[in-house]
């Protein structure tokens, strides 16, 4: 039997930097294991945007002409226009899905094993988000590889430049999902929130149609799209994919990331957030009991 180098009882070491890294690695590793075990989830995550690309975009191509707008330097096919939006969609779904797994974790009690780790709670929650982002990067990579054969051919440099953009947007959407998950008591309630968050965010954005077109049809909808953070995620990804930086989008996405992440950490804070008030995850809130 291998015996571990057991430290002397009297000297429990503090939390070292390498310990932090091991902790984050463990959280990402578990998320990856769970992901690999759910092959359907991977396939579903790919099929969804591909259906949009192959069917919706093909049909729309003849109806909708896209004029030359930055970052594009020539006329582009509708498929080319819609690809960054679909990348954003992958991340949107992934962000909500990982918050779904937070609700699942809470119901199954796994959340409690995470939260008794000695590392600070903000670090545990951020690690959990990074794990979700890593999964979404994998999905996006496969999706972009497929679209290459569909004549969506951004410059090679764009594939590198898009990575930091994807990390930031993945964090923002994951943090939004985490914030929402803190307010949800049970898995069943989550479906409603998906409909009220995912679909409005996706459709009222620049993912499927350029905003100037929207302005022609409905100024009100145009205004709404302007206030939708998902619009800026799509634009950040779109510009990055063509090797350009959209500073406005970057600033807005970064700002929302900070707000959502702060909100999520607050909500999971033991002394302030929703959990403290409600009596904790696990559903067994020690509320008024007959006594």
């Amino acid at each position, binding site marked *: 039997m291998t015996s571990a180098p057991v430290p002397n009882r009297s000297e429990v070491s503090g*939390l070292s930097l390498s310990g932090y890294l*091991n902790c984050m690695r463990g959280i990402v590793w578990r998320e990856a294991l769970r992901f690999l075990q759910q092959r359907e989830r991977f396939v579903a995550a790919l099929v969804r945007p591909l259906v949009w690309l192959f069917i919706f975009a093909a049909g729309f191509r003849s109806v909708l002409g896209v004029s030359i707008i930055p970052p594009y330097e020539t006329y582009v096919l509708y498929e080319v226009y819609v690809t960054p939006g679909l990348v954003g969609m992958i991340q949107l779904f992934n962000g909500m899905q990982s918050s779904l797994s937070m609700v699942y974790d809470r119901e199954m009690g796994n959340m409690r094993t995470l939260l008794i780790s000695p590392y600070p709670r903000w670090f545990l929650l951020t690690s959990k988000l990074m794990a979700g982002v890593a999964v979404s990067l994998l999905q996006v990579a496969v999706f972009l590889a497929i679209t290459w054969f569909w004549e969506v051919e951004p410059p090679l440099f764009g594939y590198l430049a898009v990575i930091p953009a994807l990390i930031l947007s993945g964090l923002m959407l994951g943090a939004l999902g985490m914030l929402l998950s803190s307010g949800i008591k049970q898995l069943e309630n989550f479906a409603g929130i998906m409909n009220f968050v995912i679909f409005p965010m996706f459709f009222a954005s620049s993912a499927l149609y350029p905003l100037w077109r929207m302005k022609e049809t409905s100024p009100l909808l145009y205004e709404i799209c302007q206030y939708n953070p998902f619009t800026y995620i799509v634009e950040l990804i779109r510009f990055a994919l063509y090797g350009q930086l959209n500073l406005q989008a970057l600033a807005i996405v970064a700002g929302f990331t900070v707000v959502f992440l702060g909100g999520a950490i607050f909500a999971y804070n033991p002394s302030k957030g929703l959990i403290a008030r409600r009596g904790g995850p696990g559903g067994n809130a020690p*509320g008024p009991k007959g006594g």
Partner: protein
Amino acid sequence: MSSPGPDTAGSNPPRALEISGLTHAFGQNKALDDVNFTIDPSRFCVLLGLNGAGKTTLFSLVTRLYSNTSGAIRVYGHDVRRSPGAALQRLGVVFQQRTLDLDLTVMQNLLYHAALHGFTPREARARAESQLERVKLLDRAKDKARRLSGGQMRRVEIARALLHDPQLLLLDEPTVGLDIDSRRDILERTVALCQDDQLAVLWATHLIDEVTPESQIVMLHHGKVVADGSHDAVLSGSATENISAAFAKLTQDKAVGSAAA
């Protein structure tokens, strides 16, 4: 980040667990009402109380699921609110709910937990193997957690709680849903582990037959501590012959008392 020193002044050597003046309310309902007790290192303490007595709330506060708003909780002198990291490093916890990830293998569950305590994958594996060996489940390491029986899952959860060499082990109704043999098995193992590792244990239960003659007993009723002491001290204090009678007497008295008040 380095581990800060114990926060307590005095109390030398520090107690394994020190709870003082702890009150916690959900709305109007006081789940815990001025709870005070301590557990010495290497002591096996049974926290006895009916459902709704406040045991789970107490566990949630000690494990910092949510913070105590009054009083203090110290683990080997480390206040859980002021230095939660140092306190949680010394704590091993077995929750009332099943908390193994059923889709992962036994080993993967343990490796994940070890990572949460900052161990390298190599060290994590060595620790997981030695703890599984102790609960006689090393041969099931590669099985999915789903395939274990209820009693085996509990043993894995105990192995998991001991992975990082805690000095205080908390178990919240660990025998719920187990048959009589498994219950005895879990209790005997935990008592033995406690002696081997010189580990302090807080064992919450509503089952009086889980009280051993050697254990310290803390009785909790409607959020209040109604008895605290060794087995014999509780008996003589309540002028009863056995713990069952003592428990009935003490909880009944209090119920009548609080109803009259």
